[in-house]
């Protein structure tokens, strides 16, 4: 069963069509990788899913009652606030009760490995720590779907390892996660399924076992039209649509952005 589904999304900025007939779904408890070159329309797609920008046409459905948490590519937190204060601030914006918020904040700081640094000012945090804090704020209120935008971008080897471990932890806890990235090796380590976005379109998608056989790079090159793939066949956008039509993968969903 899917927790979110995007159907036939279009988005144009001036004369440039950034997203064009893009469709994909996110299943419950899965980690979906959105993979594409820079400027492919991944971030615009995420912004549409978050309601930060409106699609020109198409629909985005999120399962009823499920919240969406978001961790940006380059998180900025006021440097004079401690990690705990940042989480407290966002919990207040989310109207989470004081007592519940404190309990959640302690849990989240532990989950992202910041329990020892929670009372230090974020101005003293490394980029990796800021990314983990961003992930923690995304998890406030226990959302069903987490969207992580370039979670490992700009991190050193240790920072990347820690972030990957955190994403795998999220999967173990049964969360649905969308990872928007252009770093193939990181997506390969965590994603159950990968959707290739090229020039704003769904250029195909592959399951983990498929890309483990052939290699994500080869498949990505083929999807992007810059190389030849091995034996594994990438399902085309039209095939995905046919599969979706066969069963209703969005049962019990509600429109958050009917256009």
């Amino acid at each position, binding site marked *: 069963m899917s927790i979110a589904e995007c159907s036939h999304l279009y988005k144009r900025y001036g004369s440039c069509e950034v997203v064009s007939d893009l469709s994909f779904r996110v299943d419950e408890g899965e980690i979906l990788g959105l993979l594409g070159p820079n400027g492919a329309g991944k971030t615009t797609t995420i912004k549409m899913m978050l309601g*930060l920008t409106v699609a020109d046409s198409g629909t985005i459905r999120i399962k009823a009652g499920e919240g969406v948490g978001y961790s940006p590519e380059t998180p900025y937190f006021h440097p004079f606030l401690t990690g705990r204060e940042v989480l407290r*601030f966002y919990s207040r914006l989310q109207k989470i009760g004081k007592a519940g918020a404190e309990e959640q904040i302690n849990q989240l700081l532990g989950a992202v490995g910041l329990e020892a640094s929670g009372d230090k000012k974020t101005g003293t945090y490394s980029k990796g720590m800021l990314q983990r804090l961003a992930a923690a704020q995304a998890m406030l209120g226990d959302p069903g779907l987490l969207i992580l935008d370039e979670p490992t971008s700009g991190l050193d080897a240790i920072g990347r390892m820690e972030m990957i471990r955190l994403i795998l932890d999220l999967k173990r806890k049964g969360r649905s996660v969308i990872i928007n990235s252009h770093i193939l090796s990181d997506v390969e380590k965590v994603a159950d399924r990968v959707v290739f976005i090229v020039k704003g379109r769904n250029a195909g998608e592959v399951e983990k076992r498929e890309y483990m056989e052939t290699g994500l790079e080869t498949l990505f090159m083929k999807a992007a039209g810059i190389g030849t793939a091995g034996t594994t066949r990438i399902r085309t956008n039209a095939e995905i649509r046919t599969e979706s039509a066969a069963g209703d993968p969005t049962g019990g969903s509600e429109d958050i952005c009917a256009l």
Partner: protein
Amino acid sequence: MCALIINTFREKIRNKTFYIVLIIGMVLMLLLTTNNSNLTINGRKVAGFEQMVPVALAIIGFIACLLAIMVSIQTIPNEFERKTTHLVLVRGIKPWQYMFALTSGNIAAGLFCILLLSFSLILFCAFYGKLYLIPSVFICSLLLGINSAFLCAAVSVLTIKLPAFIAGTGGVLIYAAGILHGILDALAATSEGFGATIVKTLLFFIPDFAAIQGQASAVLAGGPFDIQPVASGLLLIYLFLSLTFITFRKEV
């Protein structure tokens, strides 16, 4: 929304430039309020602490207005640039609530600044044993706060749509128009044509800063108080604050 206002206020009062200007203002007041001053206004020598207080308050008003522009110029553009907007808006905060909170935070910081400047004057009052002046100085500061609060609101609203530099220049022009309100009004009244109509319309939306300052001086001197410029200043703050309900950037 309170969390956003408090956060904006906290961020603003941590700005180093803010404190540098404040210190300069305080030093100016120290120089002014000492009895050795050779200041003359309209050919009359201004001597003695009591005569210096209105001058000090006028300087406080001027510095507070400059600080109001400085405080407000970057708040909203920074939020968009750092993409903090994303983390706030995905939590169901409405764009108008967000802009209103940021503008209110700016106004709070602007008022904090004028109160801080006035506090130094109050200290000097206490130092010179003129304790009876303290309540008047406090009320005067609040009245002068109307000018800086208006500038905070106007510049904040401008920065929602315009680049910071243009909004800042707009803020300085608004300040100039507010101080020269009476003169510009008289000029516009004696002129005709499209230009005069534009000037009259613009002046309608800018408080008469000089008149508000005049009322502050009236409080200090115990003279007659005219509520009209004060009330129109407050109304215009309300008007600009309500503009945050309908102004937002298309793309965040």
